[in-house]
């Protein structure tokens, strides 16, 4: 039986009577997974994370379960088993990297030796004496992750951890998370609005829009859902070929680009051959990931 470290059962939430922020949200984060919580801005991701970590004081007694038990029963001691970063990295800017870690170590009752270990893990050993306000955003993020790892958590909850990082930074964080998951078996619950990030990092996905869960499952499951492929063909000009477009499912994107909808990937070579035979002057072919499309469509719906 697969253990779920986080479960929400028909979670509902609203700040006031006007608008429901979350509606019947049922999440299941399996143990050992890297679960990506995906949705556009304003979908309710941060709110969900705040609810799960008890930051919003709505104790949804029956709706939120951590490690199989209701949340309210376990606060605040449950934080000995969890590490979390909610929204922007929260650090004490006037303290050094070392002191920030020391602070958490004191609260988590973790020996000082662990601090150096963590500093090495997040590659901040060289900068440990500098005040956090002098760190770059990437360094701050790594320090925050380090602080979340001090207590050797079984579960990491990260709200948009790569937000604002440069590509190098994004890669570093991604590699770190995968390493932690593989080597220590830490379950990671991570939210983002970037589909590409989720695709590259996660094992499971939950997609949320306007407070409702639209999809939940493994990454493989997600791939299978999206057979439809769209291909953008870039021509010299579209005008010339108008007459030859019968029989294709096609839309014109702009004066040079036509978008073809195909059933699956396998039909792409056939399409190209077809067009070439029909004297289409092809300057470029872009395969639009079905997933991305599907995602945009999905979250576009009102």
């Amino acid at each position, binding site marked *: 039986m697969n253990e779920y470290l986080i479960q929400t059962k028909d979670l509902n939430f609203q700040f006031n009577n006007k608008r429901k922020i979350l509606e019947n949200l049922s999440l299941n984060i399996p143990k050992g997974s890297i679960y990506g919580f995906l949705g556009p801005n304003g979908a309710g991701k941060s709110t969900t994370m705040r609810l799960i970590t008890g930051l919003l004081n709505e104790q949804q007694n029956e709706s939120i379960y951590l490690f199989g038990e209701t949340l309210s029963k376990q606060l605040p001691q449950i934080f000995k088993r969890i590490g979390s970063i909610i929204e922007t990295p929260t650090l004490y800017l006037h303290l050094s990297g070392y002191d920030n870690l020391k602070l958490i170590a*004191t*609260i988590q009752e973790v020996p000082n030796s662990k601090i150096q270990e963590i500093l090495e893990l997040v590659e901040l050993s060289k900068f440990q004496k500098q005040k956090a306000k002098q760190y770059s955003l990437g360094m701050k993020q790594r320090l925050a992750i380090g602080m979340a790892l001090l207590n050797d958590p079984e579960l990491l909850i990260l709200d948009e951890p790569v937000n604002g990082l440069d590509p190098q930074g994004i890669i570093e964080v991604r590699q770190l998370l995968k390493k932690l998951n593989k080597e220590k078996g830490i379950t990671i619950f991570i939210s983002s609005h970037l589909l590409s990030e989720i695709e590259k990092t996660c094992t499971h996905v939950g997609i949320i829009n306007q407070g409702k869960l639209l999809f939940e499952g493994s990454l493989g499951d997600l791939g299978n859902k999206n057979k439809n492929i769209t291909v953008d063909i870039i021509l010299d000009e579209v005008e010339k070929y108008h007459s030859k477009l019968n029989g294709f499912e096609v839309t014109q994107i702009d004066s040079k680009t036509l978008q073809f909808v195909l059933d699956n990937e396998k039909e792409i070579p056939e399409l190209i051959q077809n067009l070439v035979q029909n004297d289409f002057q092809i300057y470029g072919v872009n395969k639009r990931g079905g997933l991305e499309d599907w995602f945009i469509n999905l979250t576009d719906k009102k």
Partner: protein
Amino acid sequence: MTQYISNFTKAFRAESIKMKSTRIVLTAIVLSVLIPLMAFVFSLINGEYNSDLTEKTNFFQVSFNSYISVFEFIAILVAIISASRISQIEFKNNTWQLIETQPLSKFSIYFAKYSKLLIINAITISVFFATTYVVSFILYLLQENKEFATINIGFEEIQTAIRFWVSLLFLTTLIYVISVRFSNFILSIIVGIGLIISTSILQALNILPKWYPLKITSNAISNPSDLGYFFTYSEGFSVVISLLLLFIGYKWYANKTFKNAFVKNGKTISTSLATILILSGICFWILKPNQMMQSNETLISGTITSPDNIKEGYLVDALTNATLYTFPVSENQFKLQITEDLKLGKYHLKFDNAITTPIIIGKNDIVNIEVEHKGNDVNFKKTGTRLAENNLADLAELSTTIAYFISNDIYADNPTKISEELIDEYESQLKKLGNAYTNDNYIIRDDYRAIQQKQLIAYFINLWNQYEKKQLVKDENFKKQDYEFYKLLNDKLNRKDTEMLFDNNYRQIVVQELIANDTSDLDENTKSLNAILKLPNDSFKEKLLTTGIVSAIDQSKSASEIVDVFDTYKVGLTDAKNINYLNAKVQDAIRLGKNAKAPNFEAFDLNGNIVRLQDFKGKFVVIDVWATWCGPCKYVSPSFEKAANQYAKNENIVFIAISVDKNKIAWISQAKNKPKTVKQLIATNIDTFGKEYSIESIPRFILIDKEGNFVNSKMPMANESAFDIVLENTLKSE
């Protein structure tokens, strides 16, 4: 349980780490050290430290008391700034959500910060205390002559420090609760500064509420308990109101929204309501003023410590100076039990070394007095069933702007305005009377309060009558009854109240109305006595007549006049005691009247030689009778010395100061520093001198002519212009 403690310890240690490099504690320490240090440097620069001491001085105590008020202000600032900043650490870094996703209860988080603040307050006070001690110790070491210098940490200073820490709880908690609730740093600073400014303003307007945070702190610094308790109601209030604020603040913090914290469901509503009601109830109960209860005996008891050997004390009528009761003083203790009915009022308690103090007492009152005569100061501590009456300001010293207006003819032609001002001032003084309370939150009892209210009315009616007098000169049709003030207050004063006759204003009103219809050419005093004589015989008349005769005697210049007055009006008296008393006074007056022979006093000069009055025959002699412990004497003597300087070249007149100190050493140390233009003497036998010259109170001024006869045995005070006039005229008539 251990879970709670470890939680709290972790949170507390986390706070210590967080406060690194914020310099919050450093600021507190620096500011606390600053005041004593600056004062010390100032003393060094001024060379003040090598002062000539004449009595035992505790350097620590002196420094502590002089620095403490400025320190109070600093401590308040530190409390406000620290309370604001400790929450700002989280708001600035957005770390509330960091610490709330740690294994720390909200309770630990909230109260670890609060405890830090309390510790910072303690640090501030301790650093000040220690620095003051160090500074005063150095000043002590610098003293060349250590005869009178001591250095000692007294119980009082420790008590003040502890009380102050407790009193700071209110302000600290208030600012803390606000700073956690509202992320805007400026808000809590504004509240803090606002409290400081509003306190000054409200105090100046005399409407500072009893419960104001900065009143509570100033109580700890300046108002110790009169009843011997370590803490007063003020510190108790500080603790309870802090609990209330912490309850509200913590609940609101832990539950994020007001609704969740207090009104979420039946249980929260009832616990919140119950807690708030109980704590507020206690606060109200603490702030409610108390009144002493009467006893079942009338008793004056107490102790008197003095270098003089005191054997007797007296209870004296404040108005006539008649001795009502005499009691022995043995082993520095005294006890006077009064079995007759004693009318509630102000009396004087006097001792045989001339130390005097007013005392308010009546039937079934127990008044306890501790008199401490040390060196040049006398301190009186009065407790008992008339605690408030004896410790709050007296109406006798009332001075108002409207009195100034009337005597200086401001708005003289606008009676409506005068009437309005009188009403306004009356109401404001009435309010002030109602708002007065002692350090232990006691107020004046209803019966004496009623007397004071009548005194107040009499004061203002008297002013209106004075105004009327001036107006009638200009406009004989002026009717004082037409104006609002008269309509409002005139009938509130019963004109036949014997109890009120002690009050000067009341007597003046009564007498003025009695002689209103007397249009003869006689002087006012005579008209008054005539009118009083005509009254039916009762206690009212008795008292009025007695005081009238006394005042006539005091004002009279010639002995024969005094005898005349007494003979004429004594028929109106029925109480033998009064008659005898007045008789004695008349004899005294004759003895000391103009041209009577002045008794040949005997006194020591600074070299120990005996000096007698007869030694000055052929010169005018002006005498200032004083004592080292007499406060009013210190106030008036400079004027006497000024006059002495003025006439220094005049060979016909000599200025003498005769001290009635029992303690010769105290007298020598003060007298030797006085200007040489005044000859310093001390009576060889104080009792004899006092009796011969009828020294009822000091300071007392006497003028004797070249033949050794009295010119005036009771001159005006040296700081009154009448004094100079008498001198001038006397010398001129030469």
